[in-house]
């Protein structure tokens, strides 16, 4: 097992990894930018190194300084968390080359799976259902029309280099296709410097279902069932839960098998997430593999009782998985609310100093946060300041616990997304069961008109 691990991250995930290390008896090194010198992840680490000024590119993403920190502190391994360097194949490669274990998949896996068209082609070849669409980019209207007709309208035009919803156009009928192709290409060219677009079938009310997987170095792969991440605002996950109210046991088994197959087919190792789109008819399609631990991993930990960060570390240290698929059980229900520092109902972040920070507690409540009273929300970083996770025997109890914990959670000095979560939990459609990825945007549109 490792003796000392450097955590190449900040905020709640850095603290999460420190907690796992403490429980395993492993020493920790925190890195931090100069403005983060007093952060909790620094306070709770055994050692800490300042790696640069506030901007992430000059500090947390600064590969030479991060690796120098690892060298001068003599760590065996680096945990990248999520974001920053977590899916940087080059960083993983350099770690490998200097003999420091990157706690995650190999650099080759990151490279393969971060190229979405490559990953899609690979999975399709293996017989895993992928979203129906064009094979590569579309070059003219005629080509687009053939594919769109084959798929059936509505279709969606997407930028190859896209992200965050930009360069996307939904096309409801044939006559709209030309304009959609042109405006999408133009927007993509302006936004990403590459105007290539492709076409996929458009699903009006899809659900975002993802499976947590873990693979050791000996070919063993298990999944930890699903997370439903359909509550999104402008393509950003807001609230996640496990199990999904949209799945029954048969579908859960089928999707779980597909997830394991996807992971096995690339000889993946360590933790990963296989994301699927689930349509209203219960058909699922592979979207992508996230080659990192995810923000929403705690809901899986709550319902399976397994500490995924500790498992990541054990697997990276070469330990064999101590269980098989049949040993992984879903018990109860968990819901996670991402608490962001932001003005409610808007997307604008709310940086500032936290003057009051009273955590909720009691049965079934877990809070993952590196925020504290007098803590500062910096404009340089992600605005998520806490994750509130509620666990109960069933969805009803999990909802009730999260709801009362939101009322207990008192944060002053900054605005937060707590009111948004109250609205979601008080919504009858959400309470009833499965909703689509468009649920929240519709709810907010209704509100603003």
């Amino acid at each position, binding site marked *: 097992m490792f003796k000392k691990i450097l955590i190449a991250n900040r905020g709640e995930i850095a603290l999460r990894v420190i907690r796992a290390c403490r429980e395993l008896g492993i020493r920790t090194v925190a890195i931090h930018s100069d403005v983060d010198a007093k952060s909790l992840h620094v306070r709770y680490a055994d050692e800490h190194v*300042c790696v*640069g000024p506030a901007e992430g590119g000059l*500090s947390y993403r600064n590969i030479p300084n991060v690796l120098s920190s690892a060298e001068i502190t003599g760590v065996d391994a680096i945990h990248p968390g999520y974001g920053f360097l977590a899916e940087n194949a080059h960083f993983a490669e350099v770690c490998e080359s200097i003999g420091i274990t990157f706690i995650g998949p190999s650099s080759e896996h990151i490279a393969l799976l971060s190229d979405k068209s490559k990953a899609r082609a690979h999975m399709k070849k293996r017989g895993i259902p992928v979203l129906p669409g064009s094979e590569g980019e579309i070059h003219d209207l005629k080509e687009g029309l053939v594919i769109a007709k084959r798929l059936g309208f509505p279709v969606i035009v997407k930028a190859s280099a896209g992200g965050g919803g930009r360069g996307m156009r939904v096309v409801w009928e044939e006559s709209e296709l030309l304009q959609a192709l042109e405006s999408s290409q133009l927007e993509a060219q302006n936004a990403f410097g590459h105007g290539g677009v492709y076409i996929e079938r458009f699903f009006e009310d899809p659900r975002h279902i993802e499976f947590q997987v873990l693979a050791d170095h000996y070919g063993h792969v298990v999944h930890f069932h699903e997370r439903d991440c359909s509550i999104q605002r402008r393509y950003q996950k807001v609230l996640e839960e496990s199990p999904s109210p949209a799945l029954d046991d048969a579908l859960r088994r089928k999707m779980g098998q597909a997830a394991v197959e996807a992971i096995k087919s690339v000889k993946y190792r360590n933790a990963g997430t296989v994301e699927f789109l689930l349509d209203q008819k219960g058909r699922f399609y592979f979207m992508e593999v996230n080659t990192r631990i995810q923000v929403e991993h705690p809901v899986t930990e709550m319902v399976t009782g397994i500490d995924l960060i500790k498992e990541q570390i054990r697997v990276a240290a070469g330990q064999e998985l101590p269980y098989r698929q049949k040993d992984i059980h879903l018990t109860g229900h968990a819901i996670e609310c991402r608490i962001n520092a932001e003005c409610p109902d808007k997307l604008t972040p709310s940086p500032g100093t936290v003057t009051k920070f009273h955590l909720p507690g009691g049965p079934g409540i877990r809070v993952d946060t590196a925020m504290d009273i007098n803590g500062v929300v910096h404009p340089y970083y992600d605005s998520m300041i806490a994750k509130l996770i509620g666990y109960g025997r069933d969805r009803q109890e999990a909802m009730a616990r999260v709801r009362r914990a939101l009322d207990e959670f008192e944060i002053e000095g900054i605005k937060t997304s707590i009111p948004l979560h109250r609205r979601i939990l008080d919504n009858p459609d959400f309470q009833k069961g499965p909703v689509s990825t468009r649920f929240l945007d519709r709810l907010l549109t209704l509100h603003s008109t």
Partner: protein
Amino acid sequence: MADSSRKEIEDLVELLNRYHLTELEVEKKGVRVRVRRDAAPAVSAPVAEPSFTLEAASPSPLLHSSGLPADLGQFLTVSSPIVGTFYRASSPDASPYVEEGDIVKKGQVLCIVEAMKLMNEIEAEADGRIVKILVESTTPVEFGQPLFLIDPQVSA
């Protein structure tokens, strides 16, 4: 940073305060002390509390108040721009680039900070005299860690 080093930095802060810095902000356990004197020249002071906790790091021989010239407010701090290991000489056998008391020219190499097997030369940002070398050779340093104090009013 070891406790003894931290203690010495606090002594330094106290002195800087006594000798008319333009601005000084110390925050500790909820008590914030802020001292300002507008007439003095600008000085680059360490912005963040040095927080390096390498256990292996021996206490740096930071300045003692007794050895300090009176006009401390005038000094420039040369800080490490990267994370790495501080060397005062180009090799174990070579003599140090500079000694305390030396007069240096802007652009002159003061030390090396080694990171990932690369030797990064750190140069003087202004003409002046080396008042104090704050870190021992072969010691790890973090970003922003003060390495030298230079008195820019003394030049060759």
